């Protein structure tokens, strides 16, 4: 009905001079005010969440939190060291497995696939990015936990790898697209084969953007809980063995938040503070770098 083409026809009755101008002005003011209100409303939750994480988390934040293991439920003291170690390990595993695949896939999309192929793979990457992380967890459960016969940090790391792949692949794709064609042509003109042009010339030129993309992905998987529940499971002891069940900060926050003890709640807030600080720092850094890169294109 009122598609783009019919817009002028829709506007025809506006030209009746002055008749209901007052009503139109009032409507205009009300609607614009509502849009402004929506903007304010959207900004409120971020402020509230950050504020409470800071207020509740700061008092419980201390060295013991990240150096000590949990004590028996309800007694004071102790920390979430196994979760810190587990998160570091599993995020590392996820990044080490996922990033090379993602960067190579990004290269294929931008440099080799060509119009239709590139569109198709981008579509698949976006669809993968939209899969609920809990389904990724179930996949890793069937793929790793069932055959291995035990929950493990490795299974958690593999689940995280599958989450980081679409994020990094898309950003690599975008960043390679920012490298001007003239750079590639200059290398070709010198007789350098395409693959070496990509590895030695194009990738270095795009590396800052790709690295920030990887950081963005790392920040994202560091906060994931759902894919770890039936892969890493959780653990009260510090372990560095990828074959054993492993703890993670988000898992620990979930367990402590759902439990009945005040000391647990305090530690959940403190652990959240650590996690949020980490994630936001990465996100802000990423944004600053990406904006400079993409902004310079014109």
């Amino acid at each position, binding site marked *: 009905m009122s598609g783009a083409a019919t817009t002028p026809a829709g506007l025809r009755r*506006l030209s009746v001079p002055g008749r209901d101008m007052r009503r139109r002005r009032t409507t*205009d003011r009300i609607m614009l005010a509502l849009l402004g209100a929506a903007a304010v409303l959207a900004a409120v939750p971020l402020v509230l969440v950050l504020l409470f994480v800071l207020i509740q988390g700061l008092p419980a934040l201390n060295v013991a939190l990240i150096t000590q293991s949990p004590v028996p439920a309800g007694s004071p003291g102790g920390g979430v060291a196994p979760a810190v170690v587990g998160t570091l390990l599993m995020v590392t595993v996820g990044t080490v497995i996922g990033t090379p695949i993602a960067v190579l896939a990004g290269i294929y999309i931008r440099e080799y696939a060509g119009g239709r192929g590139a569109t198709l793979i981008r579509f698949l990457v976006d669809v993968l990015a939209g899969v609920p992380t809990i389904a990724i967890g179930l996949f890793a459960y069937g793929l790793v936990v069932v055959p291995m016969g035990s929950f493990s940090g490795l299974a958690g790391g593999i689940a995280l790898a599958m989450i980081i792949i679409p994020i990094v692949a898309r950003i690599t794709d975008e960043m390679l697209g920012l490298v001007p064609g003239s750079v590639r042509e200059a290398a070709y003109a010198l007789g350098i*084969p395409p693959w070496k042009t990509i590895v030695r010339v194009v990738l270095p*030129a795009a590396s800052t953007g790709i690295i920030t993309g990887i950081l963005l992905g790392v920040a994202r998987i560091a906060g994931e809980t759902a894919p770890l529940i039936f892969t890493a499971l959780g653990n009260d002891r510090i372990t560095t063995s990828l074959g054993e069940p492993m703890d993670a900060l988000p898992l620990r926050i979930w367990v402590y938040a759902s439990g009945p003890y005040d000391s647990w709640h305090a530690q959940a807030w403190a652990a959240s503070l650590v996690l949020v600080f980490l994630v936001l720092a990465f996100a802000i850094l990423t944004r600053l770098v990406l904006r400079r890169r993409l902004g310079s294109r014109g």
Partner: protein
Amino acid sequence: MTVQVGAVRAELGRRRPRFGEPVFRGLVALASLTVLAIIAGLIIVIASTASTGIAHNGLGFLWGTTWDPVRNVFGALPFIYGTLLTAVTALILAMLIGVGVALFLVELSPRWLAGPLGFMIEMLAAIPSVVYGLWGIFVLAPWLRDYVEVPLHSTLGWLPFFSGYPIGIGNLAAVVVLTIMVLPTVAAVSRDVISAVPGSQREAALALGATRWETIRMGVLPYARSGILGAGILGLARGVGETMAVTMVIGNSPTISLSFLAQGYTMASVIANEFTEATTNVYRSSLIEIGLLLLIVTLIVNAAARLLVWRVSYTSTSRSLAA
């Protein structure tokens, strides 16, 4: 940009058969295939681990209302219902706010404000789900109980939507948390499609004497309609698949109730909550069957949304990374 001269010279000096190109090409193609393999693997592996449940539950799984692991009776309807109720309600709220924000950012906001505000909304998406859950349990739910649910219950308690006991934890808290989490998706995609509307649309409306709101309503929104619809569907996929925050505030009770004050359960949260307790094979398999259902639904919804958004603003995806 400088081409590395050393590399060029070294390359020119050599004359030998080159395997580099096909090997590298194969490698990057293989990496792309991994993405396809993961999507295929997701469906195949989850379906096969759910097979015991599928065989045991049959088609009645979809409309069975009883979830009784002790008697091995598994009906998924309470979870499907809970997922739809919370995700759709949250989506409606998030669309109202998110499209409003997007219009504000593109059409009204001065430049100095648009940057920081857009940034804040993107940061909403960066906060881990479990932190929203924690905040939901200890801050949001008590506040909702005292200042929203109690007044609603005492004035409108005769409506089925507000019957029951106002305890904070429940469908309403889940809807609010979900709204916050879906909002950045809706706002970001809407902003992209709205800024892809050509300036001539606005100029034409303004030249005919339209007010700013009329310009938006008649010039901008019709043009961006299918893209905004896509934003909504993407938001729906996000809301349907969201797990932790909802699990922590919805109350986890497999009941079908119209009331926002009642406790509910969603597909994602029943898997998260009961999986490690599921001792029998058929119980665990039935949970995975819910996961399979969730996966299929989100795959379809996501694919549809991407197609819609792409048609409108494919070229502006890179802008969304920067703006």
